[in-house]
C-alpha cells in the first residue's frame, strides 16, 4: 500500500458502502436463517422424511399460502446469504481483477436466475401432469 504523503490526502468518505452492507446482511440474514432452515430441515427430514416426500406432500404443504411465503422468504435469504458468502470466499482467493469481476458477476447472475426459477415454482405451485 502506498504511504500517505500528506495529512490532507486520503480516500473519499464512503461510510455506508458495500462492506457495511455485506457485514450487516450476513449477520442479520444468518440469524433469521438459523431459525428458518433448522425448522425446515426438521419438518422435511425428522417429522417427515425423504421416504414420504412426493408431489402430493408438496402440494398439500403449499395449499397453505403461509408455507409458500415461508419458502419464498427462506429461498431468497438463503441464496443471498450463501452467494454473498461465496463472493467473500472468491474475493479472498481470486486476486486477478478481471477474474474477480467475472466471478462476482457470475455469482450475481446465478443468484438472480435461481431466485427466478425457485420463485416461479413456488408461485406456480405443483402441476400434476
Amino acid at each position, binding site marked *: *500500500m*502506498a*504511504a*500517505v504523503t500528506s*495529512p490532507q490526502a*486520503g*480516500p*473519499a*468518505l*464512503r*461510510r455506508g*458502502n458495500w*462492506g*457495511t452492507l*455485506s*457485514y*450487516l446482511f450476513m449477520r442479520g440474514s444468518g440469524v433469521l436463517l438459523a431459525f428458518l432452515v433448522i425448522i425446515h430441515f426438521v419438518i422435511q427430514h425428522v417429522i417427515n422424511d425423504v421416504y414420504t416426500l412426493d408431489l402430493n406432500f408438496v402440494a398439500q404443504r403449499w395449499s397453505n399460502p403461509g408455507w409458500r411465503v415461508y419458502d419464498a422468504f427462506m429461498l431468497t435469504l438463503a441464496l443471498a446469504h450463501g452467494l454473498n458468502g461465496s463472493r*467473500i470466499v472468491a474475493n*479472498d*482467493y481470486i*486476486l486477478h481483477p478481471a477474474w474477480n469481476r467475472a466471478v462476482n458477476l457470475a455469482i450475481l447472475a446465478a443468484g438472480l436466475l435461481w431466485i427466478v426459477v425457485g420463485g416461479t415454482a413456488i408461485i406456480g405451485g405443483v402441476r400434476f401432469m
Partner: protein
Amino acid sequence: MDVLLRIRRSNPASNEAPRWDEFVADLEPADRVLDALRYVKWYLDGTLTFRSSCAQGICGSDGMRINGRNRLACKTLLRDVRQPITIEPMYGLQVIKDLVVDMKPFFGQYRSILPYLVNSDPAPEKERLQSQAQREIFDDSTKCILCACCTTSCPSYWANGAYVGPMAIVQAHRFLFDSRDQATERRLAIMSQPDGVWRCRTIFNCTEACPRGIEITRRIDEVRRALSFGMPRVVKDR
C-alpha cells in the same frame, strides 16, 4: 538440559535451497527461545540470522513462528514448548535471510492509517484532557509494539498482502477511539476501503498470537460497528 532445535534456514540472495537445520543447545528450562538462538549463533553456527533487541518482550523485534505459532522468541520459555523446537520466519512477509523478514510492507500499512494524533485546535496550556472512561475505551490498542505476530498469523493476509492487516486496524482503533483526535471521518474512510477492515473473517489467529494480549478481533469489530452504527458517544463527547 539439552534442547533440540529445528530451524528454517534460507538465503534468497544466494542460490541455496531453503533447508531445515538441527542443533542441540545446552540451556536451562527457564531460558527463552531467544537464548537458544543466541547459543546457536555464538557457539554452533555464526551464520544464523535473526532480529532481537530488548530481549524482554517490548521492542517486538523477534517475532517468529515457534512450533507452528507466532510468538516473540524472548517471551517463550523453553520449558513451555515441545521439542524439537521448530523455528521458522513469520509467513506473509518476504524472507530476507533465515528468520529475518522484510517489514517494509508492514510499516507501509502502518503509515497508511495516519498513526498520529490529528488535532488542529490551538494547543492548550498543559495537556489535552480526557476522562478516564474516554481513556479506557482505547487503552487496549495502545499496547501494540508492532511485532507483526498478528498480521502474519492472519490467513486473509496470507491470501492477499494488500489487506491492511490486524495491526493497522488496531493502530487505527487507537486513534479512532481517542477523544482528542479529530480525523475520525478520514480514518473511518481508510478503514472502510475494500482491503481495509472488511477483509477480516473473524478467524481469531491475531488475538491468539498477540504477545501483548490485545483483544485484536474485538477491536476490529469495534471499528466495524463504528462504521455501521457510528462512533460511541463517549468518544464523540469531547
